[in-house]
């Protein structure tokens, strides 16, 4: 139905999001083109901060680390999530309880996730850390870069695989039973059923899972902040953490704002891909 009065329904949302998104974003854009000394002394510098930001070697290495981290967690979490979803019972009374169990990591505050893994992996008081030490491994995530990365990856897989699993499970339960019966009549193997019956029908939820994990991992801040603090050295400093240290730690408003705008544009691009893929699926249904 075409009716422009529907705008009235959207108005409250518009106002609240304008307040919490547009005004701040305009502030950021404003900062990104000025050099600010104090409230009254500001110079228009055009795109200088953008140039400086793009050439900043620390930012480039943070970006490379970010890309590596996001690719690794996608490569781990997507297959594992599908596997977990396939292991879940499809029917019966226990399903709800299994889902609650899987959802637990998603509902733990992000800094507590960091704390849990800190307490679990510390070489002195952690079950994992101390066990590895006793087995003769020289494991210490605060000193070794590789150890820090492995711990971070184990933590992120622990934290977010459930999301992929829940999405994949929702996709699996939507496949009509007749498809399986037909495949069984044709004598299809388990792998063939997965490859030719299940996977094609999972494409839409898996696209969503990949894009969600990609975008959310691109913003990761709290968990590494608590666990490793970005160290040892800068080896686990990702984009959000670098930005935060720039804006709050060093108070470099101009570069931080330019960085923010670029960061936002990249996420916006990912978001657009996400939106079009969801909408295409909906229109196809």
């Amino acid at each position: 139905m075409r009716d422009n009065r529907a705008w009235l329904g959207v108005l409250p949302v518009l106002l609240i999001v304008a307040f919490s998104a547009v005004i701040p974003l305009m502030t950021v854009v404003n900062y990104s083109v000025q050099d600010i000394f104090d409230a009254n002394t500001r110079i228009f510098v055009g795109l200088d901060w953008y140039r400086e930001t793009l050439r900043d070697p620390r930012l480039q290495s943070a970006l490379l680390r970010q890309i590596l981290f996001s690719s690794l967690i996608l490569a781990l979490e997507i297959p594992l999530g599908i596997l977990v979803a396939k292991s879940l019972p499809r029917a019966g009374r226990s399903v709800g309880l299994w889902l609650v169990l899987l959802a637990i990591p998603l509902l733990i505050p992000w800094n507590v996730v960091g704390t849990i893994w800190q307490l679990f992996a510390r070489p002195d008081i952690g079950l994992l850390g101390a066990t590895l030490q006793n087995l003769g491994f020289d494991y210490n995530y605060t000193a070794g870069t590789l150890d820090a990365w492995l711990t971070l990856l184990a933590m992120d897989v622990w934290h977010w695989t459930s999301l992929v699993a829940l999405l994949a499970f929702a996709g699996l339960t939507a496949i009509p039973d007749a498809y399986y019966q037909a495949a069984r009549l044709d004598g299809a193997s388990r792998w063939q059923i997965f490859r030719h019956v299940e996977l094609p029908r999972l494409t839409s939820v898996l696209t969503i899972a990949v894009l969600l994990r990609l975008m959310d991992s691109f913003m990761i801040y709290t968990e590494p902040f608590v666990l490793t603090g970005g160290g040892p050295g800068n080896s686990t400093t990702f984009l959000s953490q670098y930005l935060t240290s720039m804006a709050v730690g060093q108070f470099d408003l101009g570069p931080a704002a330019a960085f923010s705008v670029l960061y936002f544009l990249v996420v916006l691009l990912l978001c657009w891909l996400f939106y079009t893929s969801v909408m295409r699926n909906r229109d196809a249904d």
Partner: protein
Amino acid sequence: MRTRPHWLLYLYCVYLLVPIYWLINLSLRDNADILGSLSALPSDPSFANYLEIFSNPVWSSGFINSLSYVAINTVISLLVALPAAYAFSRYRFVGDRHLFFWLLSNRMAPPAVFLLPFFQLYSAIGLFDTHLAVALAHCLFTVPLAVWILEGFMASIPRSLDEMARIDGHSRSFFFFRIFLPAIRGGIGVTVFFCFMFSWVELLLARTLTGSSAKPIVVVMTRTVSASGVDWGVLAAAGVLTILPGLAVVYFVRNHLVRGFALGRV
């Protein structure tokens, strides 16, 4: 059809639960015991750490602060998102697709980008260090999310329901509150779940927008280092307590969760 879990699922749940078990284990021991020995079972379990948290006003007010802004945020999000989602699902209007995408893009915005402007904005209007400030800041991602989820659920309700109510002579508000809302109550449950989830777990904005009087529990936790070092037992107990509200919420909406995920709208 599979009605019993595969053994892989048990394996995965061990991986899921062992770190949480360790957290619970540490929360039941005192600091000297934790630092002194590594034992799979607490030899002398006590609830002293929990008592410490409940009796210390810094901890307990942290909990109340967190629950307050999460509740305010969830209510605001639902109230503004319901009419908007209805408009998006039932009507075509000028710029609707663009508006919908723009809303969604905020769900994906990195909070770190908004750190500084939020601090200045809320300080300027005198809301700094209040529950409302954090609740409004979290609206940045919970409102788009709520619209996004509710629209999905509303779109799955056939339009003929609207028309039948009109033919039966029901007023618009009677239809909306007595017929339509009950029909999408699963969607409302899922929306509450996700608003709660994203507001409860967030640290960066909550930390930036609060000082002393509205300090949330997650911020109290990052500052537990006392003169004698970190009290691991108390930290673990606080961690255990932050898991409980989420567990309660997910338990109530467990039967609707799969539908929410099936729409892919998280």
